[in-house]
């Protein structure tokens, strides 16, 4: 979050205006994600802070109108303090009955519900399992319902552009977008430009969609559908000057890896096997082209990991990326990279498991696997990215660590961070530090396990270099010569050396720091990974009320940062919030037996809401 604007404490007025949460929902064929990304872009260009949350089914094309085929996109827009996609939805757009059924629970009482009345006909209602039309039976009385004939109005607006009736009707997502643009006074021009270029070969389709968008906008104007008072969105008051872009967690990983390559001068070799949600990293890097970045779609997860190891052995920057089930398959390769002491980055975009689980949903349950899931004693660094921007920084730090200490590094992301988007201030590339690669190796007395006294890193000689030919392998090696050794004392020494590397890494990493709320007091809220936004928001709100609660977020899970024991001692209790059943808490309890830990845990495939954390922390504070 380095490049996020520094949050200023909101005044009473700011809080009343607040940010707004909008959720678009429809069938997976309705273009909901397109709608979401266009609204995000327009929000960004209007200078809003935002965080998005695409919530789509794993099915590529589920049967139309079914509840399991519903695709949704949520965005929170507003001032500086937007750090999550928002808890309760202020405006829900439901394009069919199934979308209403699966998303209504998210709408806050009194919230605005915009529904396409035309889609609530007999067939659609039956498919969604409604016995009666909810738009007419009074069941939505607790909300502000705007049931609009969106399909008819779209058809009327789009047909004159020379498209078929079917093509005209598919533009209804843009009609809805136009209405929401009107509601938030946002500019339609960027979306119009995008439509023109997207449908350059079918200008009549572009025109139909633009006509629909304009019609939706006009509808708001003409009917004067006054927005609810909470929707007076404030623009950020104090963003840091600079150039911004929208960044997802996947973008952060892709650009971070590209940056690691540029900073180290090592050619990037990203080896991966398609798996949701990690595949998008492969797509992103493949799109950069072969010039400077090499991608390899391996035959399986094991080949992806071992090819990356091969690329590192030969002098490249070997990286593999996957999600939970794939991570399990790479375990043996991690042992090899640890034993051979080769740099390797392994990205695990966690999803809900076990087994196939829920591939598009979030969970932080691979932590135990990352920390402990290897044969033998094979300690290695485990870092976690706390958001899209932090993905960029974390992956660069992982590369720096892998190369500096000659070790595999695991980087944890998750399905939430991967797909969420936030505004990101572009870093000054010239200010990014080089990742030093020392290839100036003296052949005199060389052996592959000759070590740097400070980092304990071995010399990274690569095939092709003169006079440095050597053999590596998984069999235990003599610490003095690199030759095969079954000597008992040597195995102890090598095991200790591998562990000592982690200690050296810990010494070089920044110490732990409380980043929000009170520096000492009743409760420390501790988290890692994508829960950062919700935790920070909840803690800041509670601290503003005068509660003695602080927030500490861990990027470095192995080795843990220095100074944790001292910080823990400053609070009565440490609440460890994570989207698993308590993996980090159990780990910490073993390391800090005298600290009072409590777990705040959730495994629903959904991220924490601020309200959930707020409620849990209040329990500990009362």
């Amino acid at each position: 979050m380095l490049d996020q604007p520094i949050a200023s404490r909101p005044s009473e007025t700011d809080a009343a205006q607040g940010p707004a949460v909008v959720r678009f929902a429809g069938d997976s064929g309705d273009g909901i994600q397109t709608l979401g990304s266009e609204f995000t872009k327009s929000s960004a260009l209007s200078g809003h802070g935002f965080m998005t949350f695409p919530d789509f089914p794993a099915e590529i094309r589920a049967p139309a109108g079914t509840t399991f085929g519903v695709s949704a996109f949520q965005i929170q827009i507003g001032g500086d303090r937007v750090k999550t996609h928002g808890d309760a939805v202020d405006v829900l757009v439901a394009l069919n009955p199934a979308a209403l059924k699966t998303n209504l629970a998210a709408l806050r009482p009194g919230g605005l519900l915009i529904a396409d009345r035309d889609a609530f006909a007999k067939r659609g209602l039956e498919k969604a399992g409604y016995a009666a039309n909810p738009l007419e039976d009074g069941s939505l009385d607790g909300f502000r319902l705007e049931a609009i004939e969106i399909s008819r109005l779209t058809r009327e607006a789009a047909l004159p552009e020379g498209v078929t009736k079917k093509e005209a009707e598919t533009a209804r997502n843009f009609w809805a977008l136009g209405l929401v643009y009107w509601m938030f006074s946002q500019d339609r021009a960027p979306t119009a430009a995008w439509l023109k270029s997207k449908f350059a070969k079918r200008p009549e389709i572009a025109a139909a969609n633009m006509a629909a968008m304009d019609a939706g906008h006009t509808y708001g104007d003409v009917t004067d559908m006054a927005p609810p008072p909470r929707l007076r969105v404030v623009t950020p008051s104090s963003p840091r000057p600079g150039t911004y872009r929208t960044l997802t967690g996947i973008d952060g990983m892709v650009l971070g890896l590209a940056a690691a390559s540029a900073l180290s001068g090592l050619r990037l070799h990203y080896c991966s096997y398609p798996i949701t949600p990690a595949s998008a990293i492969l797509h992103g890097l493949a799109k950069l082209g072969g010039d400077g970045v090499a991608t390899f779609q391996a035959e399986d997860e094991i080949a992806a990991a071992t090819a990356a190891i091969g690329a590192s052995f030969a002098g490249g920057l070997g990286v593999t990326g996957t999600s939970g089930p794939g991570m399990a398959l790479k375990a043996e390769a991690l042992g090899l990279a640890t034993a051979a002491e080769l740099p390797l980055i392994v990205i695990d975009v966690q999803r809900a498991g076990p087994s196939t689980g829920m591939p598009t949903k979030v969970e932080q349950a691979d932590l135990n696997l990352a920390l402990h899931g290897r044969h033998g004693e094979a300690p290695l660094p485990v870092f976690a990215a706390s958001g899209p921007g932090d993905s960029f920084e974390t992956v660069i730090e992982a590369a720096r660590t892998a190369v500096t200490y000659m070790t595999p590094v695991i980087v944890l992301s998750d399905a939430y961070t991967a797909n969420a988007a936030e505004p990101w201030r572009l870093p000054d590339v010239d200010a990014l530090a080089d990742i030093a690669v020392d290839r100036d190796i003296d052949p005199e007395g060389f052996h592959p396990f000759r070590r740097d006294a400070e980092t304990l890193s071995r010399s990274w000689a690569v095939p092709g270099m003169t006079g440095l030919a050597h053999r590596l392998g998984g069999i235990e090696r003599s610490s003095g010569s690199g030759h095969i050794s079954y000597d008992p004392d040597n195995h102890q020494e090598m095991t200790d050396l591998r562990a000592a590397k982690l200690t050296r890494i810990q010494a070089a990493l920044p110490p732990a720091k409380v980043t929000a709320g009170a520096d000492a007091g009743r409760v420390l809220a501790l988290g890692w990974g994508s829960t950062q936004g919700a935790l920070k928001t909840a803690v800041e709100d509670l601290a503003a009320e005068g509660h003695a609660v602080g927030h500490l977020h861990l990027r470095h899970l192995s080795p843990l940062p220095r100074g944790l024991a001292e910080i823990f001692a400053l609070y009565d209790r440490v609440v460890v919030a994570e989207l698993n059943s308590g993996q980090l808490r159990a780990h910490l309890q073993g390391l800090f037996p005298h600290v009072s830990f409590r777990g705040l845990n959730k495994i629903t495939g959904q991220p924490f809401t601020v309200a959930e954390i707020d409620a849990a922390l209040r329990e500990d504070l009362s």
Partner: protein
Amino acid sequence: MNVINPDLAAPDTDAATELTARDFTTDQEVRWCPGCGDYAILKAVRGVLAEAGRRPDDVVFISGIGCAARFPYYLASYGFHTIHGRAPAVATGVKMANPDLDVWVVGGDGDFLSIGGNHLMHALRRNVDLNLIMPNNAVYGLTKGQYSPASATGMRSPSSPAGSVEAPVNAALLALGAGARFIARSADTLQDHLPGVLKAAQANKGASFVEILQNCVVFNDGAFEAVRDKGLTADRTLRLEHGQPMIFGKDRDKGIAVDWQTGTARVVPVGDGGPVYDVTDHDQTNLALATILARMDAPDLPLALGVLYHAPADDFTVQRGDAPGRVIGRADLTGLLAAGKTWTVGDADVA
């Protein structure tokens, strides 16, 4: 973009320096069982390397797990003893990072046909420029004698006391099915034959698959009688030579005639015993013939040795256009970060 590590592009050793097998020999004590066929294979490999003249610094040996996987420790080149079955995948990564290297992959029948069958298949179909040599002893030696995917049906072993019921893999046929463009077969005992086959494999730019029948003296002694018993070899094997009639036998009195209609081969008498025009010429570019040759075996037909199939094509790194020296520079990175829609907070307008 900038070019790094000029060593990657270093030229081969100057021609004046003659290399010998000794230049490829490490100081490591070779730890195979006395009488193991791997000794002979190692000797042949060292000789071929010396003759090929690549500097040891540009040669890489990658192996998996098993008896044969100890190869890298005994060769004074770069080497990597990896994990069971995965050597072809590791080697693919090596080749992507540096296409100039002469990369050899050594794996037994367990490595290549069993746990790593998938990786072998894909290295072959991608035509990665690797010399994949498979000492096949038709048994799991390092784990003390269980039957392997290459073992004959009925083989009794600690894990198949009543005899294995499984049909063995035909490695050459498997490689053909995977789309391999260089497939050869030889044997540990055939020191007048094996080096030539290895040399041809190394010369091929692409995936070269060489099955080397290898005797395991401890767990599967005599499995390949046809190549082990000098008295039988001439009559039980056929040495292939591209463009030459397929003639074999101690007295060179037998030939192989292919019936293209049925896709079968039969033995025909040659010389005093019959007309030579019945005998089919070996054509190593002929996929149909390679399929027939790969299947030939006792008792009716001789085992085909030599290059069964060789149809060169662009290798993987050429197809991919890998440029190992190309790395993103800071200027490229600046452009990448700003690609797409950006907006500026401060004095400038939306970009």
